[in-house]
């Protein structure tokens, strides 16, 4: 196995066992499921809508992720700095890329595990009607990719500070902007003084625009590329911040 892959895997497994070795993982999964259940059933009326699709479930992801993912991401680097283990990990014979990727992938897999626990909803939909499986699959892929994007922002903000609270707040604000940047009130604030290309650029950066098309069942390569390049850019920034902040 190539060295980079091996090291990334070792870091990732260490992180994942770290999640499940502390109460954080269980608290997160339970709260995530309770909230998503509450919104799906009590607010969006999953049963009463009488439709065999899961739109009432997936439409809540951008908002839930907005708070829940920064709470997972905030410890990624801030905690290493607080405990001092960052000095240990940065002086092991591994590259920074391997550490960043390993930590990120572990958190991403963890969120995917939490998402997998929503499977009873798929079963219910299957039992009650004849859903479009392609659409459900797309929505899962889309929300997973969007989760990764949220996570990369949180990982980056976590590298800035040793305080988890500061990291959390920064990540929520940054993600809120990215969710809302396609929203009319935000774009309208730009109309009149900003050039058109800037307005288009800002709104095309929105998580929402890209999520909605995937959620509708359209798995466009451009949307996938958007999320992956966004994650790459954020993790790259994450690395730059770590290099600058270590001295």
């Amino acid at each position, binding site marked *: 196995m190539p060295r980079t892959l091996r090291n990334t895997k070792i870091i990732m497994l260490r992180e994942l066992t770290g999640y499940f070795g502390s109460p954080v993982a269980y608290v997160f999964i339970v709260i995530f499921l309770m909230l998503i259940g509450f919104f799906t059933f009590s607010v969006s009326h999953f049963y009463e809508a009488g439709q065999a699709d899961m739109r009432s479930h997936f439409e809540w992801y951008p908002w839930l992720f907005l708070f829940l993912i920064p709470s997972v991401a905030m410890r990624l680097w801030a905690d290493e700095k607080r*405990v001092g*283990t960052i000095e240990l990990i940065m002086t092991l*014979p591994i590259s920074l890329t391997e550490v960043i990727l390993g930590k990120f992938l572990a958190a991403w897999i963890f969120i995917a595990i939490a998402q997998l626990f929503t499977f009873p909803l798929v079963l219910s939909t299957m039992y009650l009607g004849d859903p479009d499986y392609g659409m459900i699959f797309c929505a899962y892929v889309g929300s997973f990719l969007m989760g990764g994007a949220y996570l990369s922002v949180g990982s980056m903000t976590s590298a800035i500070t040793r305080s988890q609270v500061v990291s959390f707040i920064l990540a929520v604000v940054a993600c809120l902007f990215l969710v809302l940047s396609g929203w009319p009130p935000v774009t309208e604030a730009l109309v009149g003084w900003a050039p058109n290309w800037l307005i288009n650029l800002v709104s095309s950066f929105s998580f929402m625009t890209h999520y909605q098309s995937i959620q509708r069942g359209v798995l466009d390569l451009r949307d996938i590329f958007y999320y992956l390049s966004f994650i790459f850019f954020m993790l790259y920034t994450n690395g730059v911040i770590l290099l600058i902040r270590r001295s």
Partner: protein
Amino acid sequence: MIEIKNLTKYFGLKQAVNDISFEVKKGEVLGFLGPNAAGKSTTMRMITGFIPPTSGTAIIGGSDITKSPINALEKIGYLPENAPVYPEMTVRSFLEFCAEIRGFSGATKIKKIDETIEKCFLKDVTYQPASTLSKGFKQRVCFAQSILHDPEYLVLDEPTDGLDPNQKHEVRTMIREMGINKAIILSTHILEEVDAVCTRAIIIANGHIVANDTPDQLRARSGLHGAVRLVLLNANVETAQNHINTIPGTKEIEIIENKNDRLTLRIYPESVTVPLANKVLNCATENGFQIETIHTEQGRLDEVFRMITEIGEARSRLDRIVTPKSSS
């Protein structure tokens, strides 16, 4: 060999380490001494690549830490200050993680871990999460991590910090044994440690090297070095002083204590090359003094340390006055 070449570090405008150069060969245990905030940890962090130097570099077994850090780090075992350990991991899983990163797998991995656990006396806490361990155990777990892969070079930042006297003794014995075929740098502010394990000591103050010598040579810089300490029973102070003053080569007599019929004197020689003890002994027996103890002082490291670091501080204050522009 570890070669430190002109290492310099600024934090903003503040100079933490100023143009430090030295070498550590295999078979040497180098003690890195200095008052708090002298730049010890900063230097060690630069040697291990945790913080980048402003200028200069460290070459570890031929690999430049700033140019090929991974090659250099493979040869190093590093114990950072305060011995950080992942709190949620058990001792064993932590060591497993470190062993895997160091490239061990399968039976060799298990063997390495078992050996290290044995060596570092961690058997009783193998399956305990690090967060439940006391300071001394955490220190040993992190120390275990640094020697696990049997590295050629060891960089230890305060390795005995937080250990009880027995544990300190064990760790020092271990360092001394490993020093036979490794190059070791260890920082400390405990001077007895230098005596116990180091073959050489570097003292830094305010980012400058102010001394680089063997412990014995350093001690020889003490004003006490070569002085004779003499305890007489039932002696009269003045007669004793008068007789001793007649010994050729005596510079000064200091009366340390005079009570309960016991007179303690310290006799300073004019030059350390002339042994004084024999002459004092002859003089005392000729004049019928009752000697309780007599010995020649080696000098005290703490005294030398204080003397040297205070000079170092004064010098760097002077530097700042003389060259205020160039340092900013």
